[in-house]
């Protein structure tokens, strides 16, 4: 399962009727335009992802749920070249496993969020490049329902800093 195949990104659409998020409260769902969710401390202003009931920066419990920006810049990255052991659960086998990119994307005013990248070619990844969050079916359960996860994709075209 290669993440950069067009069919795997949110834009191409999938059945929102049976699809559900891979983790509770990770992103707005169901939604036509989902975003990652953070908790924002009402005392010190810092964001935490995934959202939690307290602020790790100042120990306050006065936090509110908030959407994170959908775009940011790549802070660092690597490529996962071997198939992880359990608890990795993608439906892949050793034969079908595809290496995947992993990175932290700096979401302005929010956090540096870690996620899989849609790109697994390190020569096409660069610290500082523009990235956007996408949502895609990660795994199909036995009952046929799809589990939706998030990933970050290099931004190309309008809004990209590429070629500047």
């Amino acid at each position, binding site marked *: 399962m290669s993440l950069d195949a067009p069919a795997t990104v949110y834009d191409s659409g999938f059945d929102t009727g049976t699809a559900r998020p*891979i*983790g*509770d409260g*990770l992103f707005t769902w169901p939604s036509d335009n989902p975003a990652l969710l*953070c908790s924002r401390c009402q005392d010190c202003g*810092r964001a*935490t*992802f*995934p959202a939690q009931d307290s602020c*790790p*920066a100042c120990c306050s419990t006065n936090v509110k749920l908030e959407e994170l920006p959908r775009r940011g810049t790549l*802070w*660092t*990255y*690597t*490529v*996962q*070249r*071997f198939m*992880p*052991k*359990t*608890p*990795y*659960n*993608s439906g892949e086998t050793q034969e079908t496993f595809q290496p*995947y990119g*992993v*990175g*932290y994307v*700096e979401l302005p*005013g*929010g*956090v*540096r*969020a*870690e*996620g*899989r990248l849609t790109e697994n070619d*390190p020569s096409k990844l660069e*610290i500082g490049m523009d990235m956007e969050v996408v949502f895609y079916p*990660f*795994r199909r359960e036995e009952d046929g329902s799809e589990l939706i*996860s998030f990933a970050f994709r290099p931004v190309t075209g309008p809004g990209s800093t590429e070629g500047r």
Partner: protein
Amino acid sequence: MDVAIVGIGIHPFGRTPERSGMQQGAYAARAALKDAGVDFKDMQFAYGGSHSAGSAGSLVNELGLTGLPFTNVANGCATGGSSLMSAYNAIKSGEFDIGLVVGFDKHERGAFNADPKSLGIGAWYGETGLMLTTQFFAMKITKYMHDFGITSRALAKVAEKAFENGAKNPHAWRQTPIGEEEILSSMMVNDPLTKFMFCSPSEGGVALVVCRADRARQYTDKPVLIRGAALRSRRYGSFEVFAPSQALEHIGGPTVDASRSVFEMAGVGPGDIDVAQLQDTESGAEIMHMAENGFCEDGEQEHMLLNGETRIDGRLPVNTDGGCLANGEPIGASGLRQIHENVVQLRGEGGARQVLGDPKLAYSHVYGAPGISAVTILQR
């Protein structure tokens, strides 16, 4: 009350199919007791840890049911450092005179597969393939190389040195030198780190006998003093393993905090250290930990490594026993292996890997999930 190490014992690292992890721990404990010339029944307390090879406290079944207070320590890769720290405080407090510190482990082959739930992280993090220490190390060094001009050649030099040192260490797992080119061209695991730049989970056991410094000479004519020991967890803004997100602001990690604390405690500085054992879970970690522990500025590692300054015959020998790269990482024993090596060096018993110039001060550092560090300064 000052604290001294008067006995050390090690079970060879690597793979020992004929012994369980706990038997390797018992082997190391008996060796340490013998080294100090004491019996297990002389031990007033014990601290010990193992991640995957059973409860360290069960060692009493093998060593003797003497009734001593045996505390199990579980602190990830910092388990050994934390055990020593606990023993240090137990004696420093005046409550005990002499005790045992022990660590052992036996892991399956392949990368560790931690359970996100045990660290308070959602199951999704593991299911989607983010719960891997190797990714963190790769991403941390990627950013560091970008910011401070470190090259892949320096990464290879760290591994080359580790295997060269391992070849001089009879209890190392990997005792065959591997050259820079072979390291660079080996299989890419997590870019930019190749197979030979990573340590692997392994097996082994280490034990120490520690006592009040004023009684140390009853047990050995070469006592080694613990001049300082510090343990820190992460603060907000540091970049740590198993973190679904990081803060936008950036501060030094627990290693920086623990290091500053231990140097202050010992009343010495990085320039006074004669030999150092720094957590080298992979090549990049050793490079970054050189700076985080105060031994150089960010970016200086490149020329230090290319000039061989951290080799056994260099200005600051680092990981003289081959480190994690040549010994593998049995979690419970790994931090204590560093202490064992520093005692060997301070006693002048390093043989082919003995550092030159009669070393007096030795430094050790471990780092573990989810962002903890334990450091120790020993003095002859």
